[in-house]
C-alpha cells in the first residue's frame, strides 16, 4: 500500500453550486484517514481545478458536484488534464461524487473517471478504493 501521509488528494467543486458540506465531509474523512488533502473551495472552473492538480502535484482528484452540470464539467476537466499531459488513472486517479444518475455515472466511468460515488457511499468504501487503486498510477508502480 502507498503510504497515505505522502499521498496528496485534491477535493474540487466545479461549477456554480455552493453546497460543499459533502466535499468538506469527504475532505475531513480523508484527512482523518491520514491523507494530505487540499481543498480549493466552491465555484471552481475546470481550468482552475486542472492548474491546481498540476501545481499541487496531487495523486488523487476528487470532484464533488451537485448542480446537475456533471456531464459538461467533468468531461471538460478530463479533457484539460489530457491536454496538460496528465492521463486520468495513469498520472492522477480521478474520482467523483454527488448527485449523478447511474446512466451518467456509467458514461463518466467510460470517459476516464475511475469511480463515481453516489449519495450514501460509505466513507470506508472511498478510502479503500483509493488505497487499492493508487498502486496502479505510474509514479507508484513497483512501490
Amino acid at each position: 500500500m502507498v503510504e497515505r501521509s505522502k499521498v496528496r488528494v485534491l477535493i474540487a467543486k466545479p461549477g456554480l453550486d455552493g453546497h460543499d458540506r459533502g466535499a468538506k465531509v469527504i475532505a475531513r474523512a480523508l484527512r482523518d484517514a491520514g491523507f494530505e488533502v487540499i481543498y480549493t473551495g466552491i465555484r471552481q472552473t475546470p481550468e482552475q481545478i486542472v492548474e491546481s492538480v498540476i501545481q499541487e502535484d496531487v495523486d488523487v482528484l476528487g470532484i464533488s458536484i451537485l448542480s446537475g452540470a456533471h456531464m459538461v464539467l467533468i468531461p471538460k476537466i478530463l479533457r484539460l488534464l489530457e491536454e496538460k499531459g496528465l492521463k486520468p488513472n495513469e498520472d492522477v486517479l480521478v474520482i467523483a461524487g454527488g448527485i449523478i444518475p447511474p446512466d451518467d455515472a456509467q458514461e463518466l466511468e467510460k470517459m476516464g473517471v475511475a469511480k463515481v460515488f453516489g449519495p450514501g457511499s460509505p466513507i470506508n468504501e472511498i478510502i479503500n478504493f483509493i488505497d487499492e487503486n493508487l498502486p496502479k498510477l505510474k509514479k507508484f508502480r513497483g512501490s
Partner: protein
Amino acid sequence: MIDDLIERMLKGDKKATARLITLVENDEEKAREIVKKIYKYTGKAYIIGITGPPGSGKSTLLDKLIKQARNEGLIVGVIAIDPTSPFTGGALLGDRIRMQRHSTDPGVFIRSMATRGSLGGLAKATNDAIKVLDAYGCDIIFVETVGVGQIEVDIVKTADTVVLVTVPGLGDDIQAIKAGLMEIADIFVINKADKEGADATFFELNLMLDLEKEKWERRGWRPPIVETVAVTMKGIKDLWEAIKRHRKFLEESGEIDKKKKFRAEEEVKTIVSDSVARKISEKLKDKELSKLIDKIVKREMDPYSAAEVVLEETLGVKI
C-alpha cells in the same frame, strides 16, 4: 529522471517544478541530489514571510499582495503551510481557497504544504521548496506559515522580510511585550482594522516599539504598523509599499548580506544535526536501545550516561 525534471523546470514547466517539490518533500536522498544540482540557479528570489495567528487573514492578505506583485510584472511563488495532524499524519490544506483566482495566471505558482511534524511554523522541506521555486524563476516567493501562537519563529530563518499579521482584540499590552513572535516582525499588520479595538491594538504595538527606540535608531529601521482590511483592499497598497521599503533598506544598509549569512549558517547546522540524528537511528539497534532503557528504568543507569553509550557506539563520538 531528476536531470530531465530540472531541465524542464528551468524552461518554465510547472508540472516538472511541482514534481520536484514533491520529491524534496518526500525523499531525503532525492532532496539532496536536487538541491545540489539546482543551487547554482538560485539566489535571485526575494522571500517574504507572512505569519500570525490562525484566522488573522494571512491567506486573504496574501491573495491581495499577489495581485500587487503581478501588477508590477513580477513572477510570484507561494508556499502556504498548514498543520499535519500529530495523531493521524493527515492534513487539510485550505490556504489555497483564498488565492484560487491566481491559479490560472501563468506568472503565479501556488503550492500548499503540510508541516509533517515540524513545530516551528514551517515544514522541514520549506527551504528546499523555496530553492525549487527560485530556480524555476520566481522573482518573489511568499511563505505563509501555519497559524502561529508565540514561539513558532522559524520564518525568521527563511524570509528576507517578515510580515506579522495580528487582529484587534487578541490581548492587552502585556501580550505585546512578551518574547518570541513579537520580536521577529519587520512589518506589523493589524488586519480586520474595521473591527472594534483596532485603535487600542495600534496604540499598544506603538508603545511596545517605543520601548526600543534606540535599537531602531541604531538599526535604521523601525517596524511600521500597517492597518488593513484585506477583504476590501484597505491598506493593501500601503503594506506592499512597506515591504518594498524594507527590501530597499536591507539592500542599502547591507543587512541583507548579514541575513544571508545567518540563513546559510542555520541551514547547514540543521542539515548536520538532522543527518547525525538519522545516522544514529539507522545504526542504533532496537535491542541495544531497549537494554539501555531497561537499565534507566531500573535506576541502574542515568539518561546522560545512556546517551554517551549511544553516541560512542553509533558514531564513535565521546562527549
